[in-house]
């Protein structure tokens, strides 16, 4: 088989939690489907995050060299980005969607302490990869459930 070409990603959104969730607007007729799917498929937000609770998502880290993103919320957040280097789970089963959450995410790359009053200094991140699989946790460390949340994680191949 010939070599593949150097990567140039068009689709590099790894995770997004957007509250309130934008509705799925109809596509313009005769135009390409630039997004490739309804936005609701990309948006992981399901319900406001209560105080002390968190949402979490997992992804293959191998395709990317770095991860970057932003967050904004009406509550303070603790965003934790960590990595696992396990290729199999504790039972020796190769990693799939069904067991990716059971790996040991020992490599904590970043714990971002987001403060709504300090959007500039605390609302962004940039991390290299430390492992094969990625875990992102967004925890509400405020006093109230979130009413506004925008958290994005993108992957860079360069």
């Amino acid at each position, binding site marked *: 088989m010939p070599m593949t070409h150097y990567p140039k990603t068009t*689709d590099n959104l790894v995770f997004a939690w957007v509250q309130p969730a934008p509705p799925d607007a109809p596509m313009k007729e005769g135009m390409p489907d630039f997004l*490739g799917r309804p936005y609701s498929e990309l948006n992981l937000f399901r319900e406001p995050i209560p105080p002390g609770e968190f949402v979490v998502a*997992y*992804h293959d880290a191998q*395709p990317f060299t770095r991860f970057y993103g932003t967050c904004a919320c009406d509550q303070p957040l603790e965003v934790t980005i960590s990595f696992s280097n396990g290729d199999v789970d504790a039972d020796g089963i*190769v*990693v799939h*969607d069904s067991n990716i959450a059971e790996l040991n995410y020992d490599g904590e790359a970043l714990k971002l302490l987001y403060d709504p009053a300090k959007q500039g200094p605390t609302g962004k991140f940039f991390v290299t990869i430390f492992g094969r699989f990625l875990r992102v946790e967004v925890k509400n460390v405020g006093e109230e459930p979130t009413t506004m949340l925008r958290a994005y994680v993108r992957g860079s191949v360069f």
Partner: protein
Amino acid sequence: MHLTLPTDAGEPLSAVVVADAQVRCHEFTTRTRQVSLRNTGTNTLWLSFDKKAWFDVACGTSWDDRVSVEELWYCTQVGKTRFVVIGIALLEPPSPETPAPEED
């Protein structure tokens, strides 16, 4: 032998496909003479032409080769990925009985 198309031309058979952990089959409408694809998603794509030998296409990369196939099998290890696949239909040479157009 008269050809109405350039010798390297062919009908494009293009599709946008989403792969996930389940092994699925993409069928071309006719046999190809070339296949090009680009993994536009965020996960590694696994491909096979016989469901036995597999190879991977990293996200953001493309792959092409002159293969004559009617279908290809695909999946991911984790998550989903989207890819664009373009097969070029195999051109049958014109039958010897087909008369060449008259020239003025």
